[in-house]
């Protein structure tokens, strides 16, 4: 028995596998860096968005400020009718010409940083990640990273991140036929502390004037009652809740699945005699929504995945509890 030969062979095998994808860890790290930058940087910039399906283009101003209370975000559409979202750690408001509407924010909101090691692992299972180019966006030097799915149940994501901070400055989502599903890019960006903060919600003051409770209570859903047979491989359930949704009488069960990059939510809502419900497929950019009625429930699937995937998931939701 020639042990030297075996050792040599083992050496070659290990060398081959490590050379096959030498930058593999670094690529996934980019996503972590981007997530970190998105939550921790102060920035303000102009942003062009195009919904690939509808073809409409919107120009918006985005501002993100972090203070001792947490993150404050503002997205203001600059063309067309007024639509603006302002969020603080505990509140989200949609502002239109018709007025301000409070959007609920659920307790149990993910704790930052949300990209846990297992998520990075999932990412590598489902996507081939590679750095494709260095470039410039909004006058800033960026690195472009491509996330190409290993099946056609997900979209391809291409992201351009600031080489220094990791902030995402441009993103394109492409389907399996190379059609652009949505894309956005900053055309101008200011980083740092010299940013207008006059719009920020001062929480204690704002809270006292509110009628509705600050955060919607969340109960743990009895997930065992519901089976989703055809969740695409690589998606794992990350969260499950049961909470009241605005203008609904009964609590909604909400299951969240993630493949490390895209998310799929399954909502199960008691119909309670309602008749005018929306069923079928609708979309906006990367987000697809599919609803159907079964077991006297409205089942709605929302995800950053192709239409076929939300339909597959929605059609496979099955009641597995006691009738």
């Amino acid at each position, binding site marked *: 028995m020639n042990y030297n030969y075996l050792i040599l062979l083992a050496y070659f095998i290990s060398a081959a596998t490590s050379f096959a994808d030498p930058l593999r860890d670094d690529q996934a790290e980019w996503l972590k860096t981007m997530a970190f930058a998105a939550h921790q940087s102060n920035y303000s910039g102009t*942003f062009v968005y195009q919904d690939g*399906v509808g073809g409409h*283009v919107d120009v918006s101003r985005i501002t993100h400020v972090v203070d001792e209370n947490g993150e404050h975000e503002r*997205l203001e559409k600059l063309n067309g009718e007024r639509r603006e979202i302002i969020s603080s750690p505990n509140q989200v408001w949609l502002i239109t010409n018709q007025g301000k509407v409070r959007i609920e924010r659920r307790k149990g909101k993910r704790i930052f940083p949300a990209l846990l090691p297992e998520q990075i692992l999932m990412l590598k299972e489902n996507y081939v990640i590679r750095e494709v180019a260095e470039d410039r966006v909004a006058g800033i030097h960026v690195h472009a990273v491509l996330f190409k799915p290993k099946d056609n149940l997900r979209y391809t994501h291409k992201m351009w991140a600031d080489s220094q901070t990791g902030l995402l400055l441009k993103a394109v989502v492409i389907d399996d036929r190379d059609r652009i599903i949505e894309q956005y890019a900053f055309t101008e960006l200011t980083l740092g502390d010299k940013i207008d903060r006059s719009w920020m919600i001062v929480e204690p003051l704002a809270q006292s004037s509110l009628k509705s409770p600050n955060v919607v209570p969340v109960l743990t859903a009895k997930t065992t009652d519901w089976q989703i047979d055809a969740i695409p491989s690589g998606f794992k359930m990350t969260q499950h809740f049961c909470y009241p949704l605005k203008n609904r009488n009964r609590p909604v069960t909400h299951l969240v699945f993630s493949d490390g990059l895209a998310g799929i939510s399954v909502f199960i809502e008691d119909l309670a005699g309602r008749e005018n419900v929306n069923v079928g497929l609708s979309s*906006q950019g990367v987000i697809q929504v599919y609803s159907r009625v079964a077991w006297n429930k409205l089942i709605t699937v929302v995800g950053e995945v192709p239409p076929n995937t939300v339909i597959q998931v929605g059609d496979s939701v099955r009641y597995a509890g006691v009738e």
Partner: protein
Amino acid sequence: MKQNISAFMDGELFEDEADNVLSRLKKNSELQQAWQEYHLIGDALRQPDYFANDFSARFHQRLETEPIVFAPRRRVMQKARYFAVSAAASMMALALVAWLSMQVDQERTPQLALAPQTLDIRPASFSNNNEINDYVMAHEEFSPTTDVHGVASYIHSVHR
């Protein structure tokens, strides 16, 4: 003048107007900046492999050295005169939107014409459906996509 540049880029000016744009571009650095920005944004959305990094410098250089021989095709004037703009802040943005929309349409058409049989599903937009919007907002609160895209994720609730 910036609208003229935009129209010029789309080949929608008559010769004399184009000459006028070019001669003003030559003198005015602010207009050169606008010219550069329009191209950058166009590039950004059309996703080329490379941006023209020193576009401004090279453009200027060529403008200096080349004689202006400009012979656009004669054609019916399209609606290049755009629109009245009210808010000063959104002026630039509006001009861009108009221009970008035209670009998008021009690029989409051949693509659709080439492969009509592959267009399987064209779902309706949910943007005006508040009930679905509630679900989308709730989804985005927990989706890993939001972690990476940050504030930009809210665009789905603002875009119509």
